[in-house]
């Protein structure tokens, strides 16, 4: 939707009482609207300078005494004409001023609209804009943090220097091709090329690894609770979700369809799914439930396989376990509140990862379970703190394209192909990174050549 011909208004500081609150206007009419409120016009003083003024509503009533600052386009946050009015920090004042601005022709901004306009005006790059979208949609705090890092230019900070290094390499390559006649232009050796390309490959690979982390925060993880009937799966879901989501009964096979709950675990939005007990049955409805359970289990990011810890594992447990053994899973020994059987007694595989003992009924051991799940689904600390992770398939594809082009450049240099081939690869890689940022870079190469070398006849 395009409505950039409108002028928008919104508070730019968080709600609540503080020392000051800022109301921001952006759009073609921002100066006129601000003029109606403050009596100031941009010609009254230099741009980007704070000016003291009363703020009035349409009937001339003074709402507050404020400071106002005008940012003429394109040198503003959105790239449009922007006015910021710094009010005393009172929510009621802010509200009346926003209303007065609307009465003077502005419309209330939608969430993220200032930033979206900034993107359209080229004030932020594509990854920043994508970070903004993720920020608005983020479901957990960690997801929001990661989106914010991206919106503030985290990917850009990582990628722009890499792209510059590629361009300076390309500058050398192209200079050696286009100015071969000039004694001023240095040649690029294969060794030099391989060394420089390898370094950039390393950086891009680490960026690519961050994709899994970024994706987790954005798209979340699916954790499926599985096990034979009546081991307490539904109660576990309820316990984790903190509410009565599943009907809990003593009758085996009560859960015929699957139920789910959204729970943030380790900063990752986790969708917990309770499944019908994995067992052979003659009831057609339950059989359908079991079939769907199997599908869900197979596509899970993590399976919580629940055993009744109060009894010895049965043949049914063992055959159900076979279905999850090859998937990422945790073994849970439920009903720790009841008489304790020998730990995972005689259960194949119980010792591999160590089983989590818990009681879904009393809540005992639930903290351990949450920590164990977090370890499995949340990305390692290091993968996310260092940089803004890639969060989108588009971003990943662009990085992959750059990587494969650079691998080709390396191979071409190693095989001794003529200079123009690795140059074509490096150009493609630089193009892929430009694409990642949503930019394009044609003339830059030549400009760099002219600035760096004394060339020409």
């Amino acid at each position, binding site marked *: 939707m*395009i409505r950039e011909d409108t002028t928008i208004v919104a508070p730019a500081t968080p709600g609540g009482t503080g020392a000051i609150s800022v109301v921001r206007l952006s759009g073609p009419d921002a100066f006129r609207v601000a003029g109606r409120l403050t009596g100031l016009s941009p010609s009254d003083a230099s741009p980007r300078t704070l000016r003291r003024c009363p703020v009035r509503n349409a009937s001339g009533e003074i709402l507050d005494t404020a400071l106002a600052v005008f940012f003429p386009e394109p040198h503003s946050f959105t790239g449009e004409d922007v006015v910021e009015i710094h009010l005393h920090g009172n929510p009621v004042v802010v509200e009346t001023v926003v209303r007065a601005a609307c009465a003077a022709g502005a419309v209330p901004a939608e969430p993220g609209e200032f930033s979206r306009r900034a993107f359209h005006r080229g004030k932020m790059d594509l990854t920043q804009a994508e970070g903004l979208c993720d920020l608005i949609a983020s479901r957990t705090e960690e997801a929001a943090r990661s989106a914010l890092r991206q919106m503030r230019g985290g990917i850009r900070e990582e990628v722009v220097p890499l792209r510059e290094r590629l361009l300076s390499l390309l500058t050398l390559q192209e200079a050696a*091709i286009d100015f071969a006649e000039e004694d001023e232009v240095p040649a690029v050796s294969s060794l030099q090329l391989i060394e420089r390309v390898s370094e950039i490959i390393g950086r891009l690979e680490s960026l690519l690894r961050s994709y899994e982390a970024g994706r987790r925060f954005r798209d979340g993880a699916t954790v499926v609770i599985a096990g034979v009937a009546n081991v307490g799966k539904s109660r576990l879901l309820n316990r984790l979700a903190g509410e009565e989501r599943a009907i809990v009964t003593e009758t085996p096979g009560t859960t015929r369809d699957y139920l789910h709950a959204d729970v943030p675990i380790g900063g990752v939005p986790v969708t917990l799914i309770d499944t019908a007990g994995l067992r052979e049955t003659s009831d057609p409805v339950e059989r359908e439930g079991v079939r769907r359970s199997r599908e869900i289990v197979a596509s899970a990011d993590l399976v919580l396989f629940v055993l009744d810890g109060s009894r010895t594992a049965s043949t049914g447990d063992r055959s159900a376990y076979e279905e999850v053994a090859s998937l990422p899973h945790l073994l849970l020994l439920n009903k720790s509140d009841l008489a304790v059987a020998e730990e995972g007694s005689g259960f194949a595989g119980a010792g591999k990862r160590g089983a989590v003992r818990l009681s879904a009924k009393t809540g005992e051991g639930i903290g351990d379970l949450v920590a164990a799940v977090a370890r499995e689904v949340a990305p390692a600390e290091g993968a996310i703190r260092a940089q803004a992770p890639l969060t989108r398939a588009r971003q990943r594809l662009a990085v992959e394209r750059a990587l494969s082009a650079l691998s080709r450049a390396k191979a071409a240099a190693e095989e001794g192909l*003529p200079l*123009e081939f690795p140059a074509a690869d490096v150009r493609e890689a630089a193009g892929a990174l430009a694409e990642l940022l949503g*930019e394009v870079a044609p003339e830059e190469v*030549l400009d760099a050549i002219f600035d760096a070398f004394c060339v*020409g*006849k």
Partner: protein
Amino acid sequence: MSGSPYDYPKEYDVIVVGGGHAGCEAALAAARMGCSTLLLTINADAIGLMSCNPAIGGLAKGHLVREIDALGGEMGRNIDATGIQFRQLNTSKGPAVRSSRAQADKQLYRLRMKKALEVTYGLDVKQAIVDAVVVDGGAAAGVDTNLDVRYRGKTVVLCPGTFMKGLVHVGLVSYPAGRAGDFPSMRLSDSLRRLGFSVGRLKTGTTPRLDAKTIDFSKTVRQEGDDRPVPFSFDTAAIRRPQLPCFMTYTNAATHEAIRSGLSRSPLYSGIIKGIGPRYCPSIEDKVVRFSGKERHQVFLEPEGLKTAEYYPNGVATSLPYDIQRKMLRTIPGLESVEIVRPGYAIEYDFVDPVQLHPSLETKPVKNLFHAGQINGTSGYEEAGAQGIVAGINAALRVKGEPPIVLSRADAYIGVLIDDLTTKGAREPYRMFTSRAEYRLLLREDNADLRLSETGRRVGLLPEERYHRFLAKREGIEAFRKRLEETRVGAGHPLCAAVEKAGDSLLRPGITYAEALRRPGVTGAMLLACDPELRAATREAVEQAELSIKYEGYIRRQEEEAKKLKKYEEMRFPPAFPFETVPGLSAEVRDKLVRVRPDSIGQAQRIPGVTPAAVALLLVVLRRGV
């Protein structure tokens, strides 16, 4: 202009103004396409004159010459007939960046070009100074000359080179001239300004010319041409003219000192010259000032012809005062006693912003008017010739009521050139480089005919005989390639033994020749050496098949990129698309779009400063309408 002009009693289809490298190609193309054509030149002795370097081709420029030739132009044949030293440049750097260059006998070159015009049926050559373009109902209708003669024409092609308000500078002395020794055209650019064109000022320069008998060549390094000169034209069987060497020497600290001593009287550094010069073709004073840490600069001494003693010292273009030119040159080894025949000079001239052109080179403000060459802000004979032939073809197609030819960036360097000009404008004289071509691997000198012969034939510039030769060549390449794909390397094949030495275990009996050729180190020449039956194929067939197999992956990727380009080129804006009122664009982006008025989304994307976000908005508006 006084009273009513003499109305010349013959209406032409195409009037070409200017007899330089653009004008000659334009006039020849139009006349050969059957249009009655008039070429007007200020000096009929200077038709096809090489005002600067006596050479054709060079990196990326050689590509342009081949493309002109493939379309049916004259430049390739002309240099083949008059060249005195041929060289292949960049041979080790890859098949697509390899370029041809040749020194010309300057006088022979111009005389042969003039003759080519004179023997062309339907083409009149006249000497005149054109003062104005005659416009009738928004369309060009002819030209007026300074002698009050009005030539009427259905189309007009302007190729005035550096002649519009040309101003020559040597030191602090300046005088109006189209080129040293020729009249300028003082009124034409005013006429264009009145018609709504945006006229700017550029600068270029040339070197002094030196007397050979005062040069001590023993102090220089001799540089021979190639043993077996490769012709430019697909028509030329072999180069027969005797070949001359060039000579290389260097400037030194004393040269630079002499140059610095004259900077206060340099028109460039004293602020007299306002026009912008080319960064890649700097004067020697510019090089010394900008790269003061450099101890020496290379100078090539190039002969200007077989029957002249004049030498062109490539690398020392200058507009320093005459005494400084002499002093500076005499510090260079070999030039200690040199006598200057003609001094070097700078020239400022008017040009027209090329964003005012359609990709057909027809102007946007005036219908049936075409611009080609330096008027569009370019530099170089090859760039001029390339625009000339396109303008000539499209003027002729207009007369015939047919749509123009537009070459894309993936078709030809000519396409890159014209797209760059019409999309980005020219802030300095524009010269072609291979790095300007993003589909460089597809645009090789060796396949220019494969890329463009069909176009040349379609517009009627390729004679049948030439076209059939092209078809036979294409078939030969395909047949040879097929053969390589189908023939398998037998056990004990000498090729295996040859490659085994290099330690390539993947090359084993049973694979095809084509697969073998993809291995590093295996060349077409090796295949030919190992299998006598392959030797029946022509040199071109072997070369093309080898390239297309060996670099298949690279070529395929660029072809895919070229397809993407095509997609965006085909998203066309309607003629009166209201760029002024597209909502959401910043004033800056809007101004750029309004200035260029791109024909397609593809072109809009390439305008510097038009952000991808803006392009996204344009796409939305284009789809749903404003």
